[in-house]
C-alpha cells in the first residue's frame, strides 16, 4: 500500500510557472521610468556642492529652465572656479550668447517664464556670482534660481 502512494507522487509533475505576463509587467515599469525621468543631457565637468537652505522651492516647468554650473575642475587648484554652460567650460562673456541660444530653443509659452538656475559650489567667491548675475541682467534673463538642497528643520 505504501509503495502505491509513492508511485503516485512520482507521476505528479509540477506545472511550469506561467511567465507570459512578465514582459508586460516589465514594460509597465519601463514606461513609468521613461515618463518620470528625463535624460541626463549634460556631462558635468565641474564638481560642486550646493548650499543648504530652509526656504527652497521645487523648480517647476523643466523646459523653461537653463542651468549654469560653477565649481571646481578636478586636477585644477582647489581655489580656482570655472563656469560650465551646456557641455563645456566657458567664460563670463559666453553667458549672453548662451542665454540667447536657450531663449531661441524654448517655445513661446516658456519664454516669459525662463529661469536660469545657478548651480554653484558653496566656496565660490561672490564676485563670480555677481558677475554672472550682471550678465543675466543685461540679457534680460531676470528670473534666477539659486540651486540648493533642503535643510531639515529641527
Amino acid at each position, binding site marked *: 500500500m505504501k509503495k502505491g502512494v509513492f508511485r503516485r507522487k512520482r507521476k505528479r509533475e509540477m506545472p511550469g510557472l506561467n511567465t507570459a505576463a*512578465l514582459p508586460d509587467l516589465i514594460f509597465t515599469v519601463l514606461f513609468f521610468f521613461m515618463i518620470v525621468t528625463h535624460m*541626463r543631457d549634460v556631462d558635468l565637468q565641474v564638481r560642486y556642492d550646493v548650499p543648504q537652505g*530652509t526656504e527652497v*522651492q521645487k523648480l517647476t516647468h523643466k523646459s523653461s529652465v537653463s542651468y549654469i554650473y560653477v565649481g571646481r575642475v578636478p586636477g585644477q587648484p582647489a581655489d580656482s572656479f570655472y563656469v560650465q554652460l551646456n557641455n563645456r567650460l566657458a567664460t563670463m562673456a559666453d553667458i549672453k550668447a548662451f542665454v540667447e541660444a536657450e531663449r531661441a530653443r524654448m517655445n513661446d509659452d516658456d519664454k516669459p517664464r525662463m*529661469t536660469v538656475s545657478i548651480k554653484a559650489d558653496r566656496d565660490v*567667491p561672490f564676485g563670480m*556670482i555677481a558677475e554672472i548675475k550682471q550678465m543675466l541682467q543685461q540679457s534680460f534673463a531676470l528670473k534666477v534660481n539659486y540651486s540648493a538642497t533642503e535643510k531639515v528643520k529641527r
Partner: protein
Amino acid sequence: MPGLDTTSTADISFMLLIFFLVTSSMDTDWGLPRQLPPPENQTQQEEELIVKQRNALCLKLSADNVLTCNDEPLKVEELSKRVEEFVANSTDDPTLPEMSEREVHLLGRCKVSDRHVIIVEVSPMATYDAYFQMQNAVVAGYNRLRNGLAQSQFHRTYTQCNAEQRDAIAMVYPQRISERSDE
C-alpha cells in the same frame, strides 16, 4: 503551428529598463527663486540712494563672511527674526520703517509696508554659501510674515493661497531688496 516563443521578451525589456535607469536622472531641482531687477542706468541709481534712515536695513557681508546689520554684527540665525520685525513694524516704532495705509483688494484698508528697503552689500570675496544663507534668512523672514497674514486672513499657508490672495498679501509685505555691488 506552434506558438511564438516569447520567453526572451522579458529579458529584452529588462535590458531596456536598465538602459533607461542608467541614462536618466530623477533628481528634481530645488532652489531659492529670486527676481533680478532690470538693468539700470545711472540716473535711476542715484535716485534710489535717497532713502530715509528708518526705512533702510543695511546688510553687509564682508570678505571674511561676517554679517553686519546697520553696522552691528549679527548672526545669520538671528537675521530672519530681525527682517521680520523690520518689515512688519507691528508696534509703530519710530525707528522702524514707515507704514502707509492703502486699500488692498480682498483685505480692505490696512497698513502696508511699502517704504522699507533692505540694502544688501556683499564683498566680492565673500563665499557664495554666506551670501546664500543671508538670502535664505531674508526670504525666511518675509515668508513667515506672509504665512502669518495668510493664516489669519485666508486660513491657509501662503503657498496654498490662490494667485489673487497671494497678490494681496504680497502687496502688504512686498519684497524690497536692493543689492549693491561696491565696485
